[in-house]
């Protein structure tokens, strides 16, 4: 008669779960492998996913100089173009953008009163054109029309043109660098710090 010698560890074989029948040491390494795999995957994927979904956003918007206020005749609307400082160095001509500036006339204590309108239609972002003869902004895409003060006149836009934040500094008109405006993120909103 032969006696079966059992190793001490065999007595500790788990009796339930996926490790049934495995020696304790093997089942420990098995679990350790899963844990190591999980940690490795997390270590690699968290920064990779973060890289994909986080893009730098300026917390304060730089000011852009549009020129001396004497350069804007009262009642006149014109397109002022500039290089957007929110650009990347390799943005090329796409960083060159513009806003419509309208000098609405002097208001006693405030000095000159300006209206600075984004070029993007409030409907779907197409570039509006100013028609001085008819005093209207028109959008070529779906026929959005705005009055000289930027208020919606007709067509599908749900609101008036987006307005840039402006200031007068040292007799010069300055605006906060405009980002791409949308219905939920107008130029009047401060950028949310990410």
């Amino acid at each position, binding site marked *: 008669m032969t006696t079966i010698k059992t190793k001490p560890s065999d007595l500790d074989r788990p009796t339930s779960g996926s490790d049934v029948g495995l020696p304790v040491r093997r089942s420990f390494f098995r679990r350790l492998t899963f844990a190591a795999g999980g940690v490795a995957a997390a270590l690699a994927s968290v920064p990779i996913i973060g890289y994909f979904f986080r893009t730098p*956003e300026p917390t304060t918007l730089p000011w852009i100089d549009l020129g001396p206020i004497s350069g804007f005749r009262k009642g006149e609307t014109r397109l002022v173009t500039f290089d957007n400082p929110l650009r*990347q160095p390799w943005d*090329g001509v796409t960083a060159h953008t513009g806003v419509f500036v309208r000098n609405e006339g002097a208001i006693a204590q405030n000095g000159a009163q300006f209206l600075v309108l984004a070029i993007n239609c409030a409907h779907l972002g197409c570039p509006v054109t100013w028609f001085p003869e008819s005093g209207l902004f028109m959008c070529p*895409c779906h026929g959005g029309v705005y009055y000289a003060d930027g208020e919606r006149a007709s067509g599908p836009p749900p609101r008036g043109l987006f307005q840039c934040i402006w200031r007068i500094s040292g007799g010069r008109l300055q605006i906060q660098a405009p980002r*791409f405006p*949308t*219905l939920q993120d107008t130029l009047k909103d401060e950028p949310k710090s990410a």
Partner: protein
Amino acid sequence: MTSWLSKIGDWFDARLSFRGSLLPILKHPIPKGAAGPMGWWYVFGSASLTLLLLQILTGIALALVYVPSADRAYDSLLYLNYDQPLGWFLRSLHYYAGSGMVVMVLAHMTQVFLQGAYKYPRELTWLTGVFLLLCTLGMFFTGQVLRWDPDAYWGLAVGGAMAGRVPGVGPQLVHLVFGGPIIGGAALSRFFALHVFIIPGALLLLLGVHLWLILTRGVSVPPVPGQLVDPKTYDAAYEKEVHDKGVPFLGDAMLKDAFVSAIAVAVVVVIAAIVGPKGPSGPPDPTMGGANPRPEWPFLWLFALLSLSPPSWETFIMLVFPLMLIAVLLAVPLVSNRGERAPSRRPVAVLGVVVIYTLLGILTYEGTASPWSPKMNAWSGDPIPEHLLLKTPPMELMGAAVFQNKSCRNCHAIDGIGGRRGPDLTSVASRLTRDQLIDQISNGTPGGGNMPAYGKEMNPGEMATLVAFLSRLRPDGEPPAQQPTHDEPPKHEPPVQAVAGRRPLATAPRP
């Protein structure tokens, strides 16, 4: 000599195991019917695959030269078009083979749908096919962005504005799509990565699954009216059909595929050579106004649907409707995976296909014509036809000048020429009296509809001459509009305000 060759062949096969692995796959049995005349219905999938291979080849070739940088992309496109030998042809071929691929994928899907090939046990083949269609369309959209002309730039703006409407996360989404606060180099790099890495990666992965499913689930038997799909008995019957009567794919069936693929390649090559590359239409300068971005042709129908629907439906059509369409496509094999397969016994399916393609055709035509877009240069570019101005008294001539100056022409045609956003005004005097004309021009469409209120933008003199001109335009033989005789409301009643509470109305000047 031949023994030498076969010895070399044997040497390689002993290592590659081609005869043992790949050959049986190519020779997998298909139903006999699919190798006969009915097999001509089965060619569109492989034609799509062939054009995809052509797209990969031309895409790699273009990537050797194209610079995905916002300040250089446009130059590199011009270089491809004019300096790089045959660069123009490869750009053209990449575009037309891509178009051909969309056509072939749609033909393939239509055939699979009409012949019920998506039913049991090929539901997953259809589902991966739907995602393959989405990948193909995604390649078309991202490819257009890489053209980096005003269409690409402002197309991104439109896309961003749409994404910005997503409730809650809209702004973050726009930021993510553009890779920054403005449209520029980061956006182009993102779409380059989407076009050459992300979507092709997904596409090839899905294609692998799709082909695997075709091999393991088999090619469907050409439908026979009255032969119903029943998951309980289908597998056994298919096994019997294919093993008893089936033929290897490597043979007549593959010849048909190869023939149609060859025709497809030849057609896109000839079209590419004749038509030439598409764009770029100009540098992507955001300060150049008047850009009217149009989507590529597979999206024109959606563009038209969006433009023709009331503004209150827009957000729904932009954000929810496409998802609903995808859900419907995905639901097809889950809702009906059994029963009749023959198109002659499935009138609803046939009718559905006819209705869908008719709608897509009409909407695509409207998208090409886009009557909702004002003609931005019509005020200076489309003069009023001379024959309408012959013997016109000075006051009315002045009115014609006012008509041009006030950009009325951008939206209103005269004698069929001009914008088509508003009605043609040649015979407006047959519809509206002078007072109604003044009212319409001063106040626009009530409630801020499609016409702006010109009350503040015109002085009484301009209004008088303009109305005189429009009243005179009426063609001979058409009676003038009559004043309504029944309970006429007082003419000086304040009309509806254009935008309530915002814009005080100018009193309509009287001529």
